[in-house]
């Protein structure tokens, strides 16, 4: 019986491989002038990531797709894949498309968008992570099952599984379940930043050299602490910190949580 563990270990190590299939990768690109466009939208599902960034002079999209086919079979089915760009009322809809000849053998892996910076962006992502950076325009993301990363964007309206952000434009951020929200607030040129979580933690880092109005609303098991520019409240034995004016006051930072730990402290 001494051979039994060895046989099990060998089987475990051997049990990892896929045969009789070949993966062929391709990148598909499309471009559209930014003239007359105010908003870009996309509604899709990816296995990897949707990545959007500003700094472009037009609207450029690149999509990576993979065909899972029998070894030696033609990968011509990848020729069907294109990125459709449909313009209507100053809105450009970016849509992965197979020219009406859909196949379940082609997997959409990633989508990269490079936009002219002032454009607004609206993303509906049912699967895959999302990253948006260096985009001055407003950013709307509805991706309840995704991790979303934001860096240097305009005002945001985001619903996601979890959010990490470095933003200066305020807006609305909501997560579901245990999803965490971590925000570095880089500026104060906005009216309000509203954050809502269920049981996920919220951490907001604020520049302490400016004024803020802070409202922290907790229910259930949620807790709230503030340690900002020498001001502290919440925590064990501390004063409750549900409504605070910091300095001369300023943009409203409002956080609502029904079970998470809320922490507001200095941006370092």
């Amino acid at each position: 019986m001494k051979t039994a563990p060895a046989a099990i270990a060998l089987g475990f190590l051997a049990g990892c491989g896929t045969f009789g299939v070949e993966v062929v990768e391709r990148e598909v690109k499309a471009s559209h002038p930014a003239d007359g466009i105010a908003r870009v939208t996309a509604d899709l599902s990816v296995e990897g990531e949707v990545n959007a960034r500003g700094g472009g002079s037009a609207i450029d999209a690149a999509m990576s797709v993979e065909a899972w086919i029998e070894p030696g079979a033609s990968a011509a089915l990848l020729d069907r894949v294109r990125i459709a760009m449909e313009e209507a009322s100053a809105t450009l809809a970016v849509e992965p498309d197979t020219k009406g000849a859909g196949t379940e053998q082609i997997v959409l892996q990633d989508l990269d968008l490079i936009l002219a910076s002032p454009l607004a962006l609206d993303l509906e992502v049912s699967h895959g992570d999302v990253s948006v950076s260096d985009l001055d325009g407003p950013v709307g993301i509805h991706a309840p099952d995704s991790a979303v990363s934001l860096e240097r964007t305009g005002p945001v309206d985001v619903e996601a599984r979890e959010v990490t952000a470095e933003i200066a434009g305020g807006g609305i951020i909501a997560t579901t379940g245990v999803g965490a929200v971590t925000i570095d607030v880089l500026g104060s040129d906005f009216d309000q930043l509203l954050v809502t979580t269920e049981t996920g933690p919220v951490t907001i880092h604020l520049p302490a050299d400016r004024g803020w109005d802070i409202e922290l609303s907790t229910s259930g098991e949620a807790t709230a602490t503030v340690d900002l520019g020498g001001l502290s409240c919440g925590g064990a034995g501390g004063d409750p910190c549900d409504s605070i004016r910091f300095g001369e006051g300023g943009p409203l930072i409002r956080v609502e949580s029904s079970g998470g730990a809320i922490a507001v402290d200095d941006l370092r």
Partner: protein
Amino acid sequence: MIVATASSADADPTEIRKVGLGLRAGGAAAPEGHILFDWAVDGTFRPLPFIGFGGELSGGRVSLVEGDRTAFAVAPHVEYVHFTRPWLELFGRAGVPLQTRSGGGVDSAGGLAAYAAGGARWWPECHESGPELADQIGCLSFGVEVRALHAVSGGYLVMPAVLPEGATVLMTSFTIGLEL
């Protein structure tokens, strides 16, 4: 009578534990650095010594060009088990998954696969229970399994891809079971 039953069960807990409920999760390497992932819940009834019959339920999804495609599968199976120690069960299982897939801008489709699996389960609780074994509600088991799944017809979705007919996945899974 109870003592006799417990003594027998000490050698083979499945003489008392006739129903197994399990959760399985595993994966396999695939071309171009991909990892395939598969999971299932299953139940097995053991009406005969060493032999069990049951089924697995599993689901999956993949991102196609025009959206999410989801899959649901039912897989009847037959299982052979053998205890080399009172706490170590070796098993072999064969099953035939039937899968239905929909969404993603593609017509609904079905797939047929077949698999053979082998592995071991560790029963950390039942073998030391003595006469009380018969009165226990259930025991946990923890296992590892190696499975060869072959896509026979119509393709077969193993996340994150629909494998073409003729493809074979050799995957390793871990299992946790409740033996009733």
